[in-house]
Structure formats: C-alpha cells, structure tokens
C-alpha cells in the first residue's frame, strides 16, 4: 500500500505519463488504483492492424498478443501450444518479422501491423506456401500448421534478406536455400506429428518457384 502522499505523487506522475502518451493510447487510465490492490486487473487500450484491418481493444495489460487475437478478435488460426516460446504454434508476422505471439504483450504492439495465418490467404485464394503445404501433406493433425506456414513464409524472406543462420558456412557470404538451412531456421516450430520432411518439401518448392 502507498501512503496518501505517495499516491498523490504517483497520480501526478500518471498525468505526466498520460500526456506523454498522447499518440500511444495504451497508457492505462486505472494504473494506480491497481497498484493499491494488485489482484485487480489493469485495463488498457491498444490499437493495431491485424491482416489489414484496424482494431482497437480495451484489455487487461496481462493479455498476450496471442490471447488478444484469439480471444478478443476471434481469429483462432494461431494456436497456443506451450505458451512459453518453446513450440512456435503461435507464430505471427509482426511488421514483417515472425515472432512468438505468446511471449509478447498486446499493449506492446500499439500501431503494429500483424499478419496471422488468416491474413496470408483463404480457401480459394491460398498463399503459395499454404497451397504447397496442402500439396505436400505438410501436416497431419494440423495444430502446428498455422505457425509452420507463417514461419515458413518468413524464413524464405529472411534468407532473401541475407540473414545468416547457425548452419551458414561462410558468414561473409549470403546464405543459399538448402535443406540444412530450412531445417535449422524452422527449428523453432515443433510438430508432434512429425510432418517435418513434407514441410521441407513444401518450402523447397515455394523457394524454387520464387527464385
């Protein structure tokens, strides 16, 4: 508990913070009330675009990006496998980069452009990576698949952008797309069904088409 004097100070600080955040609307309005009783949820507004659509949500600061997208926007393509950054099922592409959406807070993504599996393509209008996964049987149960496909798309971009990997032999040269490179770069996406070799086939085909 804060003394009343501390609380005054903190309120003033909050006001200063609020004006500094005129653009960033995620400054929690109930911030210090919650500091008095730590079990109370603290709500905060945040806006971002998901698959090209603008959204504003008023959420508990504890909400991960994954939960915001699944539970608040009802886009359930991205999956929660482990919730600890260990499986890749929750992979989304944020401002062009793949991340684990379970290990980041929604409030930290104000103004960001987020792409989930739903945004890559849809039935009848599949992304080339989605089509290649279908063609090569890049899944069995399908639980890891949205994450695998988002990761797969980003991996090919990373290689094109010249980002090296653990298996790149010459650090000063640009990596080329090989099975070893794909395997290493996809290691953050676990598949309990073991569809790995078909996933590599799908990615190799898309990479070949892109080249």
């Amino acid at each position, binding site marked *: 508990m804060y003394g009343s004097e501390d609380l005054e100070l903190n309120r003033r600080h909050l006001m200063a913070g609020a004006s500094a955040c005129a653009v960033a609307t995620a400054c929690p309005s109930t911030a*210090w009330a919650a500091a008095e009783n730590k079990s109370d949820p603290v709500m905060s507004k945040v806006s971002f675009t998901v698959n090209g659509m603008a959204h504003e949500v008023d959420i508990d600061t504890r909400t991960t990006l994954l939960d915001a997208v699944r539970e608040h926007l009802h886009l359930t393509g991205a999956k929660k496998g482990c919730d600890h950054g260990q499986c890749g099922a929750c992979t989304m592409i944020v401002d062009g980069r793949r991340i684990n959406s379970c290990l980041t807070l929604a409030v930290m993504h104000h103004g960001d452009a987020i792409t989930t599996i739903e945004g890559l393509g849809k039935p009848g209008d599949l992304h080339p990576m989605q089509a290649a996964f279908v063609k090569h049987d890049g899944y069995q149960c399908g639980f890891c698949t949205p994450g695998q496909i988002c990761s797969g798309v980003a991996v090919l971009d990373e290689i094109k952008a010249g980002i090296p990997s653990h298996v790149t032999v010459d650090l000063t040269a640009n990596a080329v797309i090989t099975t070893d490179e794909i395997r290493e770069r996809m290691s*953050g996406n676990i598949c309990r069904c073991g569809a790995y070799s078909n996933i590599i086939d799908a990615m190799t085909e898309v990479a070949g088409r892109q080249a």
Partner: protein
Amino acid sequence: MKSFTYERATSPAEAAASVMRVPGAKFIAGGTNLLDLMKLQVETPTHLVDVNGLDLDTIEPTEDGGLRIGALVRNTDLAADLRVRRGYGVLSRALLSGASGQLRNKATTAGNLLQRTRCPYFYDTAQPCNKRQPGSGCSAIGGISRQLSVVGASEACIATHPGDMAVAMRVLDANVETVNDKGDTRRIPIAEFHRLPGGTPQIETSLQPGELITAVTLPKPVAGMHVYRKVRDRASYAFALISIAGIVQRDGTGRIAVGGVAPKPWRDEAAEAELPKGAKIATERLFAGAKPTHDNAYKLKLTERALGAVLSEARA
C-alpha cells in the same frame, strides 16, 4: 500472472526514473524472458516500463574502431550486421546458435545479457530456491544438477548463466554502458558485469536498482579464427551444456571463454596462456578449484574435448 501497470518510456533517464519511483517496477524489452517468468510467477513486477520506444536500436562505429550496439538491437539484426559478421564472427555465431528465429527477432542485446538461469528449481515455485526466494535453500544441490555450474558457484547456488551471446561478449572484452535515474552514465567491463553468487545469488549483475543498459561497446576487431562451439542435447533450439567462444591463432595462442559451466561466462587469462600446450592443460587450469556435482562432472571432459576440436581446427 500478477496484474501490473504499464508505461511506455520516452527517454532513457525517464525510464530509469520510473523504475526507481515505483516499488517492484521492471523494464521490459523483447519480453521473451521476463514474460515467460511472469507467467509462472517467478517474476511478479507491479509495473512494467516498456523501453521499446527508446532510440537505442542502432549499431554505430566508435572512435577507436569498434562498435557501439544499442541496448534494443535485436539478436537477429546484430548477428546479421555485416560489420559484426566480418569483424566479430564469434558474436554472430554465438547469437545464431541461441534460441529460435522467432525469439531472436524479439530478443534484445540488453535483455539477452540479463536473461535468468534455466535451473529447473528456479522455475518451480513449489521448490526451495535461494535465487528466487533468498534463504529458502537450494534444491539443485543434491538434486538434478546436470545442466548447472561446475565452477564459480557457491553453497547457496550452483545455477549457470545460460546464454550464448554473453560468452562471445566476454571473449571480445565488451563494455556495458548504462544510465541511471539522475542521468549519470557509466561503463562496466563485461568481466565485472555478471556476479558470482556467493551468499546472495539473487543479485546477478553489478547493475544498481533502476539502472538502464543503453548500449554494449566492442573494441576494434581482433584477427584470428572466430569460433563458437556449442554442445547441446539436440542440434538446434536448445541451451548449451557447454560452449566455447574463441578467437584462436594458427600457432594455438588466443582467447577463449566458456559458457554453460559457471554463473557467468568463464574466462581465465592464465588458462589462455596455456593454450599452446593443448586442451588438456588449458582446461585443467581453467577449471582450477572446480567443484562439479556427480551429475555435471561430465562438463570438465566435454569442455576439454570441445576445446581440443577448436584448437585443431585453428591449426588446420
């Protein structure tokens, strides 16, 4: 997860001041370690100061021919920077051997240095752990200690610093630059940045409360074979059992730091002087005073063999 208030910092000193002002406040950068621990209530901050908006995400040359790496530079960007790949290969290699592509896209330079141990008991709030709850005891001593320290530990804690990047930073003689709430800056040599546990394993670095890391600087590049050899349970996406960061010359001289064996990247200049005599003698010296457990004594031999491989690669 315990609830917390959230704020976006707009300047480094203001970020430091916010963390000083609110009891139980913490910085958050990539969030990949802090949020993981918050979900388990190993970490329970009352207030998060998001530093991602700070202008600390560039890599710039320094006057003495080195590099200044902003605290917010992502692990992917640091590993991929051409100056780093050409002049500091050991650093690129160490970064690329860590975590996954998704995690490296988020993880920051400062957050990586400050990542906490992977001791299984530290993660399990039902077990005693001096690091998590000072004075409660250490479950790892006499428990499962396969991954833990063989050297530099104490009766209170045998956890390791689990990261890869810091091991390369140690061999490169990096410096950590910081700012506090009053705007004072200082430079901490990486050798003094991580602390040995002694009787206070909860204190892991020489940072003061509220002190914000702004950058890590590297001296000018050192020639030689840059290598990062990481030995782990699977070929990718796993923490090191042991790792060796080295800059080694053809005559077998050089520098090495070892990861996964101690509470901090383990480097000993006296052991380095023995490198030309071979891996066995150098490793014996490096591990002088080591107190391995039954479960992790294998790390001594594993380090010697990995170092042997590094030295023969350099001579080839």
